[in-house]
């Protein structure tokens, strides 16, 4: 095997190994998208704002998820704020936040959907954002069963 072919082989093997690792990386549980930083108001639950859309990961073996949500500001025309929840790109539920001040803690069964990965992705889509920070809804730390 000449030197060039060895380099190609080593490069291909490294690429395959990297892709195999990245298919299901163990650190994915800590990755989020579309969230602001956590806030720690004294005497109140810890929370973080979403933007208009946000994504987080939960363990792959979870059967139920509960993400505390509060809208704080009313929805369009004073109506409720709705949050569309999906799991791994499949629709799961729509959560309606009618009282802006109340925390809503809906438990969402994930059904029998199986995954070979360590984590499932939860996507949240909020039907309005509030200026100037462009925040969606307040969310607490998720609980899974």
């Amino acid at each position: 095997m000449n030197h060039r072919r060895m380099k190609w082989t080593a490069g291909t093997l490294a690429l395959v190994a990297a892709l195999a690792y990245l298919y299901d990386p163990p650190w994915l549980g800590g990755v989020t998208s579309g969230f602001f930083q956590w806030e720690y108001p004294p005497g109140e639950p810890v929370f973080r704002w979403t933007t208009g859309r946000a994504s987080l990961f939960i363990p792959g073996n979870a059967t139920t998820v509960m993400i505390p949500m509060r809208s704080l500001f009313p929805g369009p025309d004073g109506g409720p704020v709705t949050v569309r929840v999906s799991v791994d790109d499949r629709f799961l539920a729509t959560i309606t936040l009618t009282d802006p001040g109340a925390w809503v803690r809906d438990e969402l069964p994930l059904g029998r959907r199986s995954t070979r990965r360590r984590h499932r992705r939860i996507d949240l889509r909020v039907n309005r954002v509030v200026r100037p920070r462009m925040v969606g809804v307040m969310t607490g730390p998720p609980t899974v069963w």
Partner: protein
Amino acid sequence: MSLAGLRSGIVTRGVRHFVTATAAIAIIAYLFAYSGADDSPTIHSDGYCYYLYLPSWAIYHDLSFDAMARDWFAGTYPEHIALRRWPSSGRWLNPCPIGTATLMAPFFVVGDLLSMWSNLPRDGLSLYYQYAAGFAGIAYLLAGLSILRRILQRHFSDGVTLATLVSITWGTNLFHYGVFDGTFSHIFSFFLVCLWILLVERWWEQPGWTRSVALGSVAALIVLVRHPNAMFVLVLPLYGVSRWRDVRGRIAELWRRRRWLIVAVLTALAGVIPQAVLYRLTTGAWFVNPYRELGGRFAFASPRLFDVLFSTQKGLFFWSPVLLLAVVGAVVAKGWTRGVATSAIVVFLVQLYLTASWSNWQFGGSFGHRAFTDGLGFAALLIAACFDWAASRPHIRRIVALYAATVVCLSVAQMLQYWTGNLPYSDTTWDQYRESFLRFR
């Protein structure tokens, strides 16, 4: 081996490995700046607008930016994102042209494919997209430096080449715009301008189909990344002109090469058509001032020349004093560099006047004056001319070396201050500067 031989060997290896070493430093610096959970995202500020084409077109399949606005912001982009609805059409006009996104596209595709592979959200802004955009900036920094090294090695000694590469990379805001603000347009322009210098040199040596098409393509990309950078096209006719009497000969030579010139011009025009079409779709006009809705305007009668060059706010020479060596270089340049100096000076003066006349002459938050980052390839040639001139004058050489080393160290320290929030992003006053001088709280 003699001491001189040893030094020469070290310098030669330094030149050879300069880009690799810069790559390692850039990646470490990038991870230092952006791998923490509390860090702001790589794609931010102006970089967001330049980047927005990619997710909007490739993921949302939408040329109008509406789908992304709906998904992320319930229909309307926030004030700090510079997109505005064009009054007559109601469509979103992105003031940042498509060139940066075009150059970023290969990195975006990798980020997109990896996001699907790892089950990350295909939202255009999640983890891999951020890294892809960040690494695009680093890659174009390295590509630009690589081309610059090639140009310098053709005309200068290894010692001058290495000193110039170090000075331009860390004595100015170049490294900052490759790593920290790598999604802004400046590092992409730097790369293209370096490539432009190389191609112009080759084209004047021996024009042909390939070189003319390449020249036109790079000219188009330069304009597509940042419209005012069309001024760099002036380098082509001015290349090699060092005296008035050269002008006539240059015009005659351009006429003699008109066939290749037409090929380059047609290629360049074809390259900018997509941007014109996009303007047409958005505004109804083929050419527009994309900053109109943001209130940007020129005040040509009252340019802030002194402020742009020397102020504490964003003064070019105040924040990148190593560039004073380029001024010396412009005076003492000889040989090939003399022929480049004229075009560099003309382009610099045009850029200076435009920047100083612009309503936001500071160009917002930035480290140093970012309007001039695009043309640092030219500054490097003049700095090299200065080093080359000083090399044969022992006393001056020591002074120049000491000065360069000092201001490069100062620039690196200030860049780190900026990164860690110890320098204001804009409107720096003398008192603020003095108070924060070399302080890392």
